[in-house]
Each structure stands twice: as C-alpha cells, then as structure tokens.
C-alpha cells in the first residue's frame, strides 16, 4: 500500500514556466489537500477538495489551480511560476467527515529561478 505519492520529488523551474505537481492516493479518501511549507510560516493550505468533482480555495490560492476529476488524483498547477512560489509542497488526504486526521505525501521541493 503506497498511501500518497507525489511527483516529482524536486524540480528547478524557470520563472514564467507552467508546472504541474502530481498527487495520487490509493486509500479511497474523499478529501484531498495541497499545502506549501515555508520556514517560519508552517503549513498553509493552497486548495482543497472535499470530494471528486469539487474544489475550494484555501489560505493562499493565488497563482495556483487544481482539479479533481476522480477520487485518486489531485494535481496542482502553477500556470506561470514566480520565485515566491519556491517552497516545499505537500499533498494530503483524509476520509473527510469532520474528525479525521490527514495523511501526507513525501513532498515536492520546487525552486523557481
């Protein structure tokens, strides 16, 4: 059982380029999340999805988009990357009923130059 996988592990990207971070879970969880982790700021929610076909904005959604075409996959797209999007990105999932813990992927380290 893999849990949550993320790809790529790390990426260096030129500013202005488009990038999609991939996230797949095999736990049949309803809810999925994208966070960014920055030193001193903890984890901040970018976008979330309570169930397949629905998405919502988190605390820092600007410059990012997501889709949830099915239960397992939740890709995060940076349409035109900027240096302030340099961060470590974590995908997570949960059952989604209000009292459940989230399970996290291993993260993607993204550097935008």
């Amino acid at each position, binding site marked *: 059982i893999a849990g*949550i996988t993320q790809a790529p592990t790390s990426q260096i990207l030129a500013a202005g380029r488009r990038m999609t971070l991939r996230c797949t879970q095999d736990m049949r969880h309803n*809810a999925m*999340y994208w*966070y960014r982790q920055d030193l*001193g*700021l*903890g*984890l*901040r*929610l970018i976008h*979330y999805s*309570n169930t397949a076909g629905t998405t919502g904005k*988190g605390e820092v959604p600007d410059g990012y988009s997501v889709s949830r075409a099915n239960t397992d996959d939740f890709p995060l797209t940076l349409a035109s990357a900027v240096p302030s999007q340099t961060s470590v990105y*974590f995908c*997570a999932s*949960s*059952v*989604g*009923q*209000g*009292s*459940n*813990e*989230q*399970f*996290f*992927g*291993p*993260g993607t380290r993204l550097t935008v130059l």
Partner: protein
Amino acid sequence: AQSVAQPEDQVNVAEGNPLTVKCTYSVSGNPYLFWYVQYPNRGLQFLLKYITGDNLVKGSYGFEAEFNKSQTSFHLKKPSALVSDSALYFCAVRGESYNTDKLIFGTGTRLQVFP
C-alpha cells in the same frame, strides 16, 4: 476564526528527561485538535488527536497530549525523551466547517534531544 499558536520555535531537552511542546488554541465551538511530527525531508506523520472524552490522549511513539479547556491548551508530552524524537512538531485545529477535515496548522516547534 480557528487558530493555534506554538509559542516556542525550539525546545531543547536531554535524553531521558521529560519533554513538553506547547500549543494553545482559539476556536468557536468544540475544538478538534491534532499533533503531527515531521522528520527531515519527510511528510508530516499523525501522532494523536483530541475529539472528545478523556483529556489525556495517548498517541504514537509514546507521546501523549493533555487537553485543558480552561487554559485553551493542548500540550504534547513524553515522559522520557529519545534522541530519535528530534524533529519538527506541528499542532493543528480543525477549521470552522464541521463536516470537513480541513486543518489549520501552527508554525511548528523544533524539538532537539541531546544525548
């Protein structure tokens, strides 16, 4: 609005000594509280949660946390620290939507256990 605060950026403790990592919260309604640990270059791992019931919650790796409603705190504790406990610890509270698992995280506390 829901929020958590972790007042210490770093906690240092000698191996074998008890450890406490502090967390205070502010919520509307009943608090659902969580602790996570992050080892270097890894994702977050769930340690324990308080939903209801006993104020002392036991979790993974010998950790426990005490829910204190009057002090709005949820401190993480371990009776005897190990060097391998050195990591980044996050407290979190469930967001305002009661039918979702959205969490709001604190800024994290780095625990350093010295041999």
